[in-house]
């Protein structure tokens, strides 16, 4: 039997303000636990418990991020590191970033970044699981290093040309060497979403846990779960080794790895990279490893800025994050020749630009209708329209008013911008134009058809 739902008429619109506070990214609200069936039992994960943990973002822009592009110069790394520190804020939401140590430039970048004196992000390193590499870590005086320890048989058998026992023993030997050198090991389980969990991962991590208990707490091994090929899946009910919820539960519950020692490292081969990272937070992993704008090996890693917006949305608070830095970093990346897709969320040229006339009409009425949050305050990026034949007079009016800096009652009506709108339509209908109208062209039309308003704008700007 179905329920009959009655329309609830109201004089005031219900804008769901508690969820969609326009001043911030909309808060993600939970009304129940996350439930996963594991070994035949219903296991609940409480999102509120997750939010009480010290969730953090870690960064690998200078390691995995550099594997996807020509190397950054030392100066570029220092500039990005400095901006990253400001972006993450005093609470260290961006807690750590990792560096290569193999070249003189790698080591100079690390030294110069550290010399800035920022408390966060902390500097860590990344090396192969090779005892000889510890000399580099010790010389760099880094307290924590990542160690690459492949965990799937694809890697153990076909890349390392070893069997499981040999790989296991070699890894343990190197990790012991890290402890002996006074360096905290962060063990990267490469290709863990394609690994034999019971046959290798669980025995290996259990042994690491056992050995951790022999060293001080601040030296306990950290586990980075590396979804090297992007096979991880966040949906409940998925089998291991692809299930992120089950994988994390086995680490925390079955082995006893604490959430603060767990980190998720994803790749975007199946478009799941951001949600997989966010899922890891909720199921018991405190750190999500990211790169700026998602640049990383092949399809990239969880985007740093996306993780920060998710962080704000989960906490309902900026938590000290300086969102304005996201745009500054995007501008800087463009200035050094990095392409960012126009439709890329939060920083792409068109991320909050509409071309549709009906959307432009909505924006004219109330920008909340077609803007995700107050991007003017948080990003200094007010919503815009890009003018084409689909923009309509609404779009033209919105563009003209934004260009002239007119707000509220000062705004010009559609009737007042009709000459510009006619010129735009003629470009397509009469001249068969195929591209969008540029800002420069529109400015010229405003100058010609609305000389008084244009002159006022020029005067105001000067």
């Amino acid at each position, binding site marked *: 039997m179905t329920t009959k739902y009655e329309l609830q008429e109201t004089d005031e619109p219900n804008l769901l303000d508690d969820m969609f506070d326009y001043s911030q990214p909309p808060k993600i609200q939970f009304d129940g636990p996350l439930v996963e069936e594991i070994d035949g039992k219903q296991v609940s994960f409480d999102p509120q418990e997750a939010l009480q943990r010290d969730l953090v973002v870690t960064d690998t822009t200078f390691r995995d991020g550099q594997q996807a592009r020509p190397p950054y110069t030392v100066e570029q790394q220092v500039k990005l590191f400095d901006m990253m520190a400001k972006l993450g804020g005093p609470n260290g939401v961006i807690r750590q970033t990792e560096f290569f140590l193999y070249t003189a430039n790698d080591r100079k970048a690390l030294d110069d970044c550290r010399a800035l004196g920022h408390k966060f992000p902390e500097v860590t390193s990344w090396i192969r699981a090779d005892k000889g590499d510890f000399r580099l870590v010790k010389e760099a005086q880094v307290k924590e290093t990542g160690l690459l320890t492949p965990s799937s048989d694809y890697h153990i058998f076909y890349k390392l040309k070893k069997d499981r026992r040999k790989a296991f023993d070699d890894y343990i030997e190197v990790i012991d060497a890290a402890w002996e050198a006074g360096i905290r090991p962060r063990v990267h389980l490469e290709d863990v979403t394609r690994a034999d969990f019971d046959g290798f991962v669980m025995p290996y991590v259990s042994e690491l846990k056992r050995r951790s208990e022999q060293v001080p707490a601040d030296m306990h091994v950290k586990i980075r779960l590396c979804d090297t090929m992007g096979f991880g899946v966040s949906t409940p009910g998925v089998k291991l080794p692809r299930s992120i919820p089950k994988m994390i539960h086995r680490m925390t519950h079955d082995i006893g790895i604490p959430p603060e020692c767990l980190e998720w490292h994803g790749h975007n081969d199946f478009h799941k990279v951001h949600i997989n990272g966010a899922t890891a937070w909720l199921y018991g992993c405190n750190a999500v490893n990211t790169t700026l704008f998602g640049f990383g090996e092949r399809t990239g890693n969880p985007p740093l800025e996306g993780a920060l917006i998710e962080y704000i949305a989960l906490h309902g608070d900026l938590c000290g994050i300086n969102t304005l830095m996201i745009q500054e970093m995007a501008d800087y990346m463009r200035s050094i020749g990095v392409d960012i897709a126009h439709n890329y969320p939060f920083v792409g040229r068109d991320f909050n630009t509409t071309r549709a*006339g009906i959307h432009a009409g909505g924006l004219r009425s109330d920008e909340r209708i077609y803007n995700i949050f107050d991007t003017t305050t948080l990003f200094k990026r007010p919503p815009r329209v890009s003018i084409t034949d689909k923009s*309509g*007079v609404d779009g033209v009016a919105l563009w003209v008013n934004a260009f002239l800096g007119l707000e509220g009652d000062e705004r010009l*009506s*559609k*009737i*007042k911008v*009709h000459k510009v*709108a*006619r010129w735009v*339509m003629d470009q397509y209908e009469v001249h068969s134009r195929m591209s969008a109208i540029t800002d420069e062209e529109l400015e010229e039309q405003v100058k010609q058809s609305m000389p008084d308003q244009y002159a006022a704008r020029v005067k105001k700007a000067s």
Partner: protein
Amino acid sequence: MNREDVKSRVYKVIANVLKIDTGQIEENQSFSADLGAESVQSVELMAGFEEEFEIEMDEDEALGVQDVGGAIDFICKHLD
């Protein structure tokens, strides 16, 4: 100005904007469905009326007028 004067000048504006003969226009015709006015032309019609009668019209009210007779009545009311 009486209604016939307004009507005559409204027809002139419509003919000019939509590029049709005034003889094709009737009071009961809709701007869009009968006379084929597209989005930009609807706005151009209102701009034409403002210029012809030297009046300022409220955008929402003006664009709410759907047919020729409605426009004549709206302008007459404005001129009163």
